[in-house]
């Protein structure tokens, strides 16, 4: 007889004891592709920085392949792109990570999804993780992406990073937990 999944509980304030060993803010190291640096902040409903959050990243490699048995795209690389990162916020609620811009992964209808990074957000006060995505600016595929298309147009911007000029390949993307520009979070 099927049973139900175990309930989620908050990571609480002291998760770094158990989770820091897998911290990884450089996903790009030793891998081919366009390097990007992504920086941002996590802000609560009063606009205060959240110093005790941790982000987990999951993404495809530069050719749009996930390092996972479910993704059957052929590969022959000796050191596959792992695609996982874990990045805690600092005392100012800031995070930063370096990665390879993922290639387009095919979507449910066989058409390509726009390049994106899957992100889970954990913190004290969150009884379940929040799930969101970060997309890239000026990306032609954004307009046909099957996930962006189900997001009301007025809120799509919260998922698209902004270039931080004049730095090349440097992007800013923030997580706003509440407020007028609350980040879009997904049920998936």
């Amino acid at each position, binding site marked *: 007889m*099927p049973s139900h999944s*175990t309930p989620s509980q908050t990571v609480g304030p002291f998760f770094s004891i158990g989770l820091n060993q897998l911290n990884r803010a450089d996903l790009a190291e030793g891998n081919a592709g366009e390097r990007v640096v992504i920086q941002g902040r996590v802000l609560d409903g009063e606009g205060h920085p959240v110093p005790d959050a941790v982000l987990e990243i999951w993404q495809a490699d530069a050719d749009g392949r996930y390092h996972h048995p479910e993704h059957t795209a052929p590969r022959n690389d000796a050191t596959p792109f792992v695609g996982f990162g874990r990045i805690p916020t600092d005392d100012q609620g800031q995070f930063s990570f370096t990665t390879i811009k993922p290639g387009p992964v095919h979507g449910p209808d066989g058409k390509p999804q726009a390049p994106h990074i899957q992100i889970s957000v954990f913190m004290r*006060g969150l009884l379940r993780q929040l799930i969101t995505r970060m997309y890239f600016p000026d990306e032609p595929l954004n307009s046909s992406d099957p996930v962006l298309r189900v997001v009301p147009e007025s809120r799509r911007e919260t998922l698209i990073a902004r270039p931080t000029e004049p730095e090349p390949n440097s992007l800013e993307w923030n997580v706003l937990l509440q407020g007028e520009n609350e980040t879009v979070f997904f049920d998936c």
Partner: protein
Amino acid sequence: MKPLVGYRKPAPGTQPNHLYPPYVSSIKRAPKRPLISIPVTLSEITGPTFPKEVASPDAFDLTRQHKGEPLGERIAVSGRVLDEDARPIRNTLVEIWQANAAGRYLHKNDQHNAPLDPNFTGEGRTFTDDDGRYRFITIRPGAYPWKNHYNAWRPQHIHFSLFGPAFATRLVTQMYFPGDPLLEFDPIFHSVPDDDARRRLISSFDWLSTEPDLSLGFRFDIVLRGRNATPMER
């Protein structure tokens, strides 16, 4: 191309909502707008896998990470990690962390006036075996006060973090102990609306894993989201 098969949505009441005002920290941190449902894509049904090296063979034993043994009641915590169809989740990473026997975390922000234990860090990692089994040796964590409300105390608990086969199966939870009188008053525990679901967070005392003259055993089985039924092959 094969159709993509997603993971089941939780049954109503079996998972906490993001906002649960008795847990005061949720008020400014839970999103106010409804979550947006999205179609199944490869991005949610794939997920990270980890090499065995991330959990050294002795990382399951939290009582042997220092020169001496930690103070407290030595316990074995074991169980199985299954999906909602009772299939074992094999070779998946399990991370845990906890307070010491005095109810103090080895963390700069823990100001509870209780002693640190030089022989206890409070973190462990292991992988499940081919039957989905895992096992940790540790000491029973103490209860500790927190600032949620007047005279608030967290029940004894161990934090668990699991990945499962996909981004969609990621789970962070807490394991509690049977008979803990503080459970009744704990808003984090009570954030789960469904009584049966909430009770599944409580481990059971287990003679089978209790070792004579060594340690009490507690059993904690964990269920990760199951897969939707696969469409018939045409």
